[in-house]
């Protein structure tokens, strides 16, 4: 019933946000704050690692979409790391696979950042 957020700096002006737990209507404001703070500081290339996320709902998707829209205004990008089949399914059926880069490993997500 909780979310943990951890932000790490990575080579090349890029940041990795590790999320673990459940991203729902209760916990997504915390994710929104963390991502928003990074963008406010001028970080426009993000990898968000969802490998330890067991659950995401539409408010969580909304936070990710909102982050993506903000960084795109600055020519940035958001790549996701996601291996959980249920969560992948959610990105599939909502069509969000088409707007996010979704990768099976952090390495792949990092390399694909523009």
């Amino acid at each position, binding site marked *: 019933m909780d979310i943990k957020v951890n932000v790490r700096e990575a080579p090349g002006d890029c940041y990795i946000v590790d999320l673990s737990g459940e991203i*729902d*209507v209760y916990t997504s404001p915390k994710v929104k704050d963390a991502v928003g703070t990074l963008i406010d500081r001028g970080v426009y290339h993000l990898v968000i690692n969802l490998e330890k996320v067991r*659950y995401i709902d*539409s*408010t969580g998707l*909304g936070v990710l979409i909102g982050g993506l829209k903000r960084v795109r205004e600055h020519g940035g990008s958001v790549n996701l790391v996601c291996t959980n089949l249920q969560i992948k399914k*959610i990105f599939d059926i*909502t069509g969000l696979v088409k707007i996010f880069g979704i990768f099976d490993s952090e390495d792949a997500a990092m390399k694909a950042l523009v």
Partner: protein
Amino acid sequence: MNQAVEQSTPDLVELRVPARAEWVALARLAAATVANRLHFSIEEIEDVKLAVAEACAAVIQHDGHGEFISLTCEALVDALRIRVHDSGRHGVAPAGSRHMNFEEARVAGLGIFLIRTLMDEVSYDVHPQHGTDLLMVKRLAGRPE
């Protein structure tokens, strides 16, 4: 234990929680417990959890919602029937309450879209006096309608 009484009791679970974000996880769990009893697959149980969570989130994010959300889960022979009841009177939003901007409305639409995709039957019942019911049915796979 009295076996006759035991077996005739329907698998009906009701939960009433404050219409606030921190209680949605419990609603999810109650629905998952009933789905598990019906031997839905793990993926189907996740579908049910998400549908219930989206229904609760929709209530909570809607202006003029009631103080409580009621969840009713009924295990039928071949399906799970879920009702999410909001006692709020829609259209009678309290003065000064927030309205959704375009972006928020879009995310709310995503929630409704998910419910419709994950569940087999979805319908609304709006009673001006008694609030709104969202009714959802998930059928056990392989069973005819």
